[in-house]
């Protein structure tokens, strides 16, 4: 298991956003999380990537515990230094890309490897150029984010996350801010990563994509995982009434 999240609970001002959620991700697995907005999908991702702290439960990466619940029922995290070690395991691609606008594309990719991981410039640049080539945007290395289309920016964001060599890559609605015609180029890149057995968790509204690429689909609603399983089962033969209801919307 790359990641195990056990009995995760999370409240925002008394509102229960995640209710006792448990799920795991195996090496090389692609997991899609679908569900209506406000169902807690993004919050789950943000907890997994340590942008939000859980209130209760366990987060385990590569068999190492990053957070657990103590005797009084409160979540306890490892210290800041160890947390840095856990952050290395995971990468996150945002809906809004969040590239650094004052950095060139290349610098967006090499800055963290150099200044967080202490990798030499030569090595970081070599890795970055490989990634840009893979994303089909190596000619943009010296451009700035504002000069790129949304689809290109998102591919840079994926490359930036990959440059840290994470064990698992999370995507928070990676195509929701894109025009339909730009969505394809980003999904193609994610599909390519899936073929290379990159471990990924993708929160998405792109149902055909989720069905085609993922090994497992989680349907979330109201802070719980309503249904999960093989994408063919979940999409073609959902068991729960709530899942059927949700999927029907996409058929129209």
């Amino acid at each position, binding site marked *: 298991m790359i990641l195990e999240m056990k009995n995760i609970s999370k409240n925002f001002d008394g509102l229960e956003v995640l209710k006792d959620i448990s799920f795991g991700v195996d090496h090389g697995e692609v997991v899609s999380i679908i569900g209506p907005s406000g169902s807690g999908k993004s919050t789950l991702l943000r907890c997994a*990537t*340590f*942008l939000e702290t859980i209130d209760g439960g366990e987060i385990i990466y590569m068999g190492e515990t990053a957070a657990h619940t103590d005797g009084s029922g409160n979540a306890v995290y490892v210290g800041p230094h160890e947390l*840095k070690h856990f*952050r*290395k395991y*995971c*990468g*996150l691609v*945002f809906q*809004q890309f*969040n*590239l*650094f*606008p*004052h950095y060139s594309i290349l610098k967006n990719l090499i*800055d*963290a490897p150099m*200044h*967080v*991981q202490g990798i030499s410039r030569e090595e970081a640049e070599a890795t970055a150029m490989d990634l840009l080539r893979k994303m089909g945007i190596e000619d943009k290395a010296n451009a*700035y*984010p*504002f000069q790129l289309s949304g689809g290109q920016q998102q591919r840079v964001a994926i490359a*930036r*996350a990959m440059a*840290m060599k994470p064990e698992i890559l999370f995507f928070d609605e990676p195509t929701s801010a894109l025009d339909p015609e730009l969505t394809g180029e980003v999904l193609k890149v994610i599909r390519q990563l899936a073929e290379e057995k990159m471990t990924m968790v993708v929160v998405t509204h792109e149902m055909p994509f989720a069905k085609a690429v993922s090994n497992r689909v989680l349907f979330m609603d109201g802070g719980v995982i309503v249904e999960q399983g093989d994408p063919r089962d979940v999409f073609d033969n959902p068991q729960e009434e709530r899942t059927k209801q949700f999927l029907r919307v996409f058929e129209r």
Partner: protein
Amino acid sequence: MTFSTMLSTMSSGMWKTFLIFALTLIGSLPLGMIVALLRKSRFAPVRGFIKAYISIMRGTPLMLQLLVWYFGPYYLFGWNIGNWRFPAIIVGFVLNYAAYFAEIYRGGIESIPAGQYEAAEVLGFTKFQTFMRIILPQVVKIIMPSVTNEVITLVKDTSLAFTLAYQEVFSLAKQISASQTSFMPFLIAGVFYFVANYVVEIVMARIEKSMDYYK
């Protein structure tokens, strides 16, 4: 008194005006950043103190503040500080301008989207690295027009040192004008301030242009 004597007498004042200007910037630009950061401190008393400080600095005339800094030590505490005139001016200007710069910085810092912090956090940057590498460079670009405004105001505000009888351009212009019954010193002072601000505009425009490479 000939025009050239007037000019050379006033040039010593120009140097003093420049000193106030330069020292105020050197002191208040960084101090403003510290104030802006303290204003977002986790400790409520610190935040309260900083808010009160900014409020007082912006809510009372700089001229009055200069008088307080100059006469305050004696009238309040009975201290007689030697050569206090110039230091009092600099303290007054730096503390006043730091308050204005702090508010400009705060506006800039708050306009950076949360996504920038989150992206940096996920990549493993420390809080300090995030601020220095990601946030600050973007803030500088955003606040440049407001800073330019403030710097131009400062050039003109240096004339307030006249209140403490410090012999900068404006004080000298007034003295020479009275003693020589001439209007010329005021014209010279006016041209001096205008040219100084013209230089400020050119320099600031250059700095802004140097950051035009991204949006």
